């Protein structure tokens, strides 16, 4: 799509609305006109008027409306999707940018590594993306159709108005209550998430659970929770069925009402032709209202999804790239850094920190002693601690801009190897040299070279970890923080790669955490 950007979808939405209204009008007029036409010719056929009856104009109109209905519906679908897709691109790019500001991103455990959470999230995004097409446009078109029907009824058979209005009110109330069935829908979603969570943690503990004989009951419980979610969803669908049943009465009963009202008002014979036009218009409108319950459900889903997506939003200022470039610091100090746990609580006694170029620092400690959190604190991801440099002080935000943080659970993007190295401007030789240093040359050649496509699942954990280390080698940031760099690597290879990296990063401030590496030559060790 060539034109994007704010507001570029507006034109397409206008086309969509216009075409949707035209399609509905064509359908309604086609129904009314053909019935009126048959009635007229039947009456004319009784007399000599048959010979003078202008047959061609209504015949041509009927053909025009038939073609118009088909064409307008096709156009409406195309324009609507075009508009929705244009909005979708804008919405998703905006969401991506705002998710990048979410405080949760920099804390522990990014939930979207979990597939079930990610799938739910994408569903929510989609509910918002397409709500205009699924809810907004049909609501508007339906309102126009009903308004015209009411106006025509008021003109030809006003007596029919009260019952029609009563039915309309009943349908709208039912639809409204469906659109506000938040409780059922939210419970279904919550149960679904709970079931997935229980199942997920049961799956990671399958061996202990099996050994203790708890696997069966627990997996059953998780799946039962998911079934309960399904049953809640079924309750929502039952309500949908009621709304649809009610809506299916609207067209036919209105039609009968108009004819009956006109007859009661004394219309006979030819005088009934106009009411028949309106009645068959109502019938056609009723056909168009089939599946009406999808509209309130789309509203419901949109509201829930927006609320859900809103939870991730944050007001914090852009965290990355907004800072003025600082010179490369030679050393970072903190006389007594109050360490933070992942949830922001203070942890342990204040820790004096000295980090210097040429003296790699190893954070040693048992699993759970807070190594990753300390690395994130140094990287400026959590906390607001200023650190001292030779020239002055360096706050968290500029520190974030100056450091490259190598997370131990870093992701592989579904993209080329080149894109995955995040080194757009570097020459191919540099990229290959970095890959060689992490012993990935053969694997990358096998994957199709620098422009070969890789995904999280095409690389093993060890290969992903090594690619992740190659990213660090290609970064020119002066502060390098490695979280468990040898994880998923066998001991010898881990040592070789780490030695190579320490050598190549001798001109940077290097901090790494490990529960296997004891220490490094000329290095410092901080025991947590």
């Amino acid at each position, binding site marked *: *799509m060539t034109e994007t950007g704010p507001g570029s979808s507006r034109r397409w939405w206008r086309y969509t609305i216009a075409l949707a209204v035209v399609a509905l009008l064509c359908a309604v007029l086609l129904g009314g006109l053909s019935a009126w036409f048959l009635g007229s*010719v*039947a*009456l004319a*056929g009784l007399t000599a008027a048959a010979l003078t009856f202008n*047959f061609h104009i209504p015949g041509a109109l009927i*053909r025009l409306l*038939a073609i118009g*209905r088909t064409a307008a519906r*096709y156009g409406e*679908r*195309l324009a609507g*999707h075009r508009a*929705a897709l244009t909005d*979708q*691109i804008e919405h998703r*790019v905006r969401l*991506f940018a705002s*998710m*990048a500001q979410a405080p949760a991103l920099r804390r522990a*455990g990014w939930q979207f590594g*979990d597939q079930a959470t990610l799938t739910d999230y*994408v569903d929510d995004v*989609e509910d918002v993306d397409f709500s205009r097409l699924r809810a907004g446009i049909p609501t508007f078109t339906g309102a126009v159709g009903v308004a015209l029907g009411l106006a025509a009824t008021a003109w030809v058979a006003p007596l029919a108005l009260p019952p029609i209005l009563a039915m309309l009110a009943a349908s709208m109330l039912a639809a409204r209550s469906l659109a506000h069935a938040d409780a059922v829908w939210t419970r279904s979603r919550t149960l679904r998430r709970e*079931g997935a969570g229980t*199942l*997920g943690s049961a799956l990671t*503990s*399958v*061996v*202990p659970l*099996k*050994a203790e*004989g708890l*696997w*069966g009951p627990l997996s*059953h419980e998780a*799946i*039962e929770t998911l079934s309960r979610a399904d*049953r809640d969803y*079924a309750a929502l669908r039952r309500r949908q069925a009621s709304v649809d049943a009610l809506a*299916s*009465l609207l067209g*036919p*009963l209105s039609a009968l009402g108009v004819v009956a009202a006109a007859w009661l008002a004394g219309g*006979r014979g030819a005088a009934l*032709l106009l009411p*028949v036009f309106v*009645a068959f218009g109502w019938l056609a409108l009723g056909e168009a209202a089939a*599946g009406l319950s999808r509209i309130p459900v789309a509203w419901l889903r949109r509201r829930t999804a927006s609320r859900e997506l809103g939870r991730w939003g944050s007001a914090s200022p852009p965290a990355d790239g907004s800072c003025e470039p600082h010179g490369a610091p030679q050393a970072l100090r903190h006389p007594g850094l109050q360490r933070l746990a992942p949830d922001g*609580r203070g*942890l342990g006694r204040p820790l004096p920190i000295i980090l210097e170029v040429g003296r790699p620092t190893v954070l040693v400690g048992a699993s759970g*002693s807070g190594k990753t959190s300390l690395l994130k604190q140094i990287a400026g991801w959590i906390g607001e601690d200023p650190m001292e440099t030779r020239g002055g002080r360096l706050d968290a935000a500029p520190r974030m801009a100056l450091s*490259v943080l190598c997370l131990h659970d*870093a992701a592989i*993007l*579904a993209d080329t190897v080149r*894109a995955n190295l995040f080194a757009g401007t570097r020459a191919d030789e540099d990229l290959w040299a970095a890959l060689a240093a992490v012993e990935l040359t053969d694997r990358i050649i096998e994957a199709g070279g620098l422009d070969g*496509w890789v995904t999280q699942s095409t690389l093993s954990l060890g290969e992903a970890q090594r690619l992740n280390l190659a990213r660090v080698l290609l*970064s020119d940031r002066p502060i390098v923080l490695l979280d468990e760099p040898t994880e998923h690597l066998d001991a010898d290879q881990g040592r070789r790669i780490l030695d190579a990296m320490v050598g190549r990063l001798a001109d940077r401030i290097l901090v790494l955490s490990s529960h296997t590496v004891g220490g490094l030559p000329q290095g410092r060790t901080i025991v947590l």
Partner: protein
Amino acid sequence: MLDACYQIGFGWSHPNTFNLHKATMYEKWGMMPPAAESPPSGLSTQFSALGLARVVAGQGTRMVLVLQALRTLLKLGFSGCTALLVGSLVMEADVPPWLAAAAAALVGACAIAGLFADRRVVATESRVATGLSDAMAHRLASMPARQIQALPAGGLIVAMQRHPEAVAALVVGHRAARTMMAAGPLIAALALLLVSWQSALLVVLLTPVMIIFFALVGETLHRRAEAQERAFGRLAGQFSDRIRALPTILANHALQAEEAKLARRLDAYAANTMGVLRIAFLNAAIIDFFASLSIAMLAVFLGLGHLGLARIPGFHDLALWQSLFILMVAPDFFAPFRRFSEQYHAKAEGEAAAAALDRLFEDGSRPFMPSGMLEAIDLSLPAAGMVAITGPSGAGKTTLLRRLAGVDGAPGPMSGGRGRPSWIGTDSFVADGTIAEAIGSNADAGSTRLELAARSVGLLDDALLPGGLSARVGANGASLSGGQRLRIAVARAILADGPIYADEPTAKLDAASAASIRRALADLAASRPIVVATHDPKLAALALRRIDLPPRVHGAAT
């Protein structure tokens, strides 16, 4: 994002659109496309999601069909009454006074039949989904741990959440729509036949022409969808992929670049999607066109007949009510095609979901084959005391431990009797809630015993778990470290009464915690059998018996 188009685009109807849909579903559900060469299936019982779903659905789907056929008949009855009423009124003929009431009653009955049909669809689909879930639960409960661990966890969870529903929609909603596509037009044609066989013939003759158009559109669509899959298949999941990878992108300062790239790629993908949709929507347009065409043609023929200007066989000498009836019923002839085409995404999703479930649960389990090494080992355990399995990494310590605990199919030597067994490892399960609940979830111990157990493994003075026994562990222990899980598992074992299997219980701990775990295990060994797989010489030194495994050339089974 294509998926959304399917849900709104009313007109997907050709099976060839499947390819277009596939990529999206794989993205959404995180499934891997099936391997090109289907793996040889196991010899034993196969899991067939579709077969099972059909059995559960059986009666319910038939009832749905009966109700839907009833709805169609009642609708025809309404059309007949209304046509007769309007026709007679306009022609000033005598109208039986009950006709209007009958029309209203019929349309009411039609709505009620529709309501029951819809509710029956929901109830049957819900029953099918629950039946499938139960079957999966049974399957999971009886699978050996080895096989469960081989399943892709993320994919399995999403499959459990969503696939039963999708399969149910295929065997109930979609199947009913398919059957009604045959029955509905037939009923409508028969109704037309009652009035004018020529008009019935006209709509029936239009049908093959419509199907030829379908085939032509389907062919083009197939080609376009294949081309899209080849050119843009990779771009299908870029948004969710980048959301997943956000921390990595941020850590590498690639945010701006990735944002711009994401916009470019979404744009390219959307543009291509529009190209495919242009053709795909033709399916719906064809149904619309033929329905409109039939009305236009019939109205003209019938009109000429009434005027007496032309003597078209079957279209003259009709009463007005008969022409009106024909005009009302003709669209009903085409409506089932449209309803079926709306169900299209249900077919594609249901089939993919069923195939995915079959793959996940196909019985690939081979009988547990103890290696020669394990056969040579005396697997009997003492009534109390510690047995240590030692040996270099990859020697099969964990495999042997799992064999003894009986988690991989074959029962272990201690299974049956002697109290509730415990497993201690960094992957131990931690129930949602507080430390006390995590430790006591499997025992009815008083608070004193709970506290003693927690204290003996140093859980009460853990800086990361402030609040002692009432410290909350995150949802399902997600925020716990391996070491914390391990200590919780030891505390749980203290409160249980059966044999204990411990996998590297001191590996990820600092010296003080490791010492406290060793002490706790030594105490427990006085009254119970404990098997530990360990590298820790101090722990192995506490054992009554040592099984020292020789190094193996190939990697360990785990």
